[in-house]
């Protein structure tokens, strides 16, 4: 297998050497919805038309990061390391782009500057291949050190050594909870060896405003397959499932293609890398239920049932899919595994902070200049993400709050922007790391409205199994709506706070337990906005709001 991977790498390198100029077009979801596929076609056509097929090539690659300026095209030349990035390219730009690329010139008025903090301040591990390789060709993944981690794991390491490496890396679950990945692996590995075990990749990215997992799946699907296969080897499983949102057809299509390619190469299926280790991966489609991101609900859904959670313990690590020990990790967690095995746990542990190691991918959105995908070391201050990487709010207006963690998270006010981004610091602020959605809001956003929005979300997405969540979210929504409409009294606010506590403490699963978070955090930092909307209390509300 080693020779085979080396051969593919050599062939790919030779192939790349044939072309003097390469035009890489982002074909991930965001750019694709700005018709970047037509840009690829137009560029290819132009290369033919200008009789340059021997020296120029155009190809589709994964996410280039700065989604708001898409479609993006990166042009590289053989003898230069630096790439030129072009923004908002349409098929009409193809003739001039191809002509300039072939002549080694730059089309100045289309250039997207890359010397900005958005590009300079990032540390890419999970996204190292995004925007560099064609996600639909396994050869390019292999040439970028792909499947080297798996090869090393299955041929040179015992399963326990693989788990040790993950433990040493300090990697924690990237789905939001932050449970140490190595510990989870250890628990499942310790389960009875005679039992069938399963590996599940949670790709049911349901938080509104989060699109990291989607981008990884679409830009670098083999990375997930490799991570899952290494996990399977480490815990002694031979079957894995990827549970993908039904809303992500492109990710599903690319995963399917990747699974077939990996099987053919012998890095997935029976006798992986010439050893006796077998591992199969199947895709399971979600059907639009937010609660299925909860692990026990996700398992029910894979079993073909309604996605309702069940009480834990027993945790899936003991009693999971079909009642067998099951390892569930999020997409980004698995994406971190191959580089950790390849380069060692110590290398990974050197990045980030003491308790939160490595990097985290964030989806920056909302009222911010640079929307898109970023990967930064843990511990970076929020301010650096918002003001420098994100470029601040257009027009230089001040930030009011940053929302992290989706409907389970909270709003962090501008005063706390110097907080380092790690699991514990965000929890202390009343929010959570979450899966990585980061929504920036300016003064025009009303916080009561935001809280109401998230409560409406939780209300509709509540599965209905336990009463506190099913009934509580509806009541909280109506109270928030009443406050927002300026019809509520001081009593309603007291009731709302009581309900928040009750729902948090008595709900069955994470959806209900965290549903009050957006309310609690906005009450904590923006209480005055609530008080301003109340109608009855002249002491706390001197400027009467007309009902």
């Amino acid at each position, binding site marked *: 297998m080693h020779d085979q991977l080396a051969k593919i790498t050599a062939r790919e390198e030779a192939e790349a050497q044939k072309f003097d100029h390469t035009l890489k077009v982002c074909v991930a*979801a965001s750019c694709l919805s*700005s018709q970047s596929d037509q840009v690829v076609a137009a560029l290819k056509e132009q290369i033919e038309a200008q009789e340059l097929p021997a020296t120029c090539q155009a190809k589709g690659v994964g996410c280039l990061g700065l989604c708001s300026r898409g479609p993006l095209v990166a042009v590289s030349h053989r003898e230069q390391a630096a790439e030129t990035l072009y923004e908002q390219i349409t098929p009409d730009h193809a003739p001039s782009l191809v002509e300039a690329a072939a002549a080694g010139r730059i089309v100045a008025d289309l250039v997207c500057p890359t010397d900005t903090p958005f590009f300079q301040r990032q540390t890419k591990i999970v996204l190292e291949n995004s925007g560099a390789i064609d996600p639909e060709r396994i050869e390019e993944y292999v040439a970028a050190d792909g499947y080297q981690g798996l090869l090393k794991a299955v041929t040179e390491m015992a399963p326990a050594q693989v788990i040790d490496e993950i433990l040493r890396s300090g990697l924690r679950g990237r789905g939001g909870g932050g449970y140490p990945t190595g510990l989870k692996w250890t628990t499942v590995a310790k389960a009875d060896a005679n039992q069938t075990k399963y590996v599940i990749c949670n790709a049911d990215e349901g938080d*509104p405003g*989060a699109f990291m997992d989607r981008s990884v799946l679409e830009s670098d699907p083999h990375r997930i397959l490799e991570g899952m296969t290494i996990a399977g080897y480490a815990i002694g499983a031979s079957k894995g499932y990827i549970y993908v949102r039904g809303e992500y057809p492109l990710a599903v299509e690319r995963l399917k293609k990747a699974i077939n390619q990996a099987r053919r190469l012998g890095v997935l299926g029976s006798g992986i890398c010439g050893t006796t280790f077998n591992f199969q991966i199947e895709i*399971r489609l979600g059907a639009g*239920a937010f609660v299925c991101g909860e692990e026990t609900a996700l398992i029910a859904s894979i079993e073909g049932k309604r996605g309702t959670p069940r009480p834990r313990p027993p945790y899936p690590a003991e009693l999971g899919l079909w009642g067998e020990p099951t390892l569930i990790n999020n997409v980004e967690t698995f994406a971190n595994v191959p580089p950790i095995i390849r380069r060692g746990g110590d290398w990974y542990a050197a990045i980030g902070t003491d308790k939160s190691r490595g990097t985290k991918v964030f989806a920056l959105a*909302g009222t911010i200049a640079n*929307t898109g995908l970023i990967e930064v070391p843990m511990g970076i201050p929020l301010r650096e993400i918002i003001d420098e990487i994100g470029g601040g709010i257009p027009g230089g207006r001040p930030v009011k709050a940053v929302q992290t963690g989706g409907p389970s998270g909270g709003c962090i006010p501008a005063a706390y922007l110097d907080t380092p981004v790690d699991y514990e610091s965000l929890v202390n602020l009343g929010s959570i790391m979450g899966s990585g959605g980061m*929504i920036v809001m300016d003064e025009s956003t009303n916080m009561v409205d935001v809280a109401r929005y998230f409560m409406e979300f939780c209300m509709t997405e509540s599965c209905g199994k336990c009463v506190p969540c099913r009934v509580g979210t509806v009541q909280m929504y109506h109270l928030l709506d009443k406050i927002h409409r300026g019809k509520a009294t001081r009593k309603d606010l007291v009731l709302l706070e009581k309900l928040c506590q009750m729902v948090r403490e008595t709900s069955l699963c994470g959806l209900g337990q965290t549903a009050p978070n957006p309310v609690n955090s906005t009450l904590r930092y923006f209480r005055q906005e609530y008080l301003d909307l109340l109608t009855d209390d002249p002491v706390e509300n001197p400027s009467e709001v007309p009902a």
Partner: protein
Amino acid sequence: MLANPKQLDPPTDDIRWRFVQAAMRRNGFRRSALIETLHAVQEAFGCLDEDALRYVATSLSVPLSQVYGVSTFYHLFSLKPAGRHTCVICTGTACYIKGGPQLLETVRNAFDIKPGETTADGQLSLLTARCVGACGLAPVAVFDGEVLGNLTTEKTLESLANWSQNDA
């Protein structure tokens, strides 16, 4: 995991049932293949009608109540046929603070339908989505599977008007 090796005859001789049968066969007629099978039915027929639910229930040996329960639990499954065109407005957080609700209001008023409904002439279904994952382009809507970003109310109405013109 009971396997049911017997393949039952579909309710009609519509050729699209073969697609559904293929999906069930691929999964060995296992009960756990219920959601996969319903996806296949929806893809082939556009919705899950009573005939389809009964057929899937019998073929996979799953109680009809469970099939109905699953079909109504998940948002992507629809028991009613969709209109000729679908317009999905994203209601994710980024779209919400950048004007998604106004888009929804515009379409609602222009066609007098609520989310989840279809116009009386069967031309347009209005749906909402919980974030289509294109937050960089917010606000976003999906017209017949094509994602359009940075929308304004004018642009949305224009796109919808183009449909009626093309169909005429």
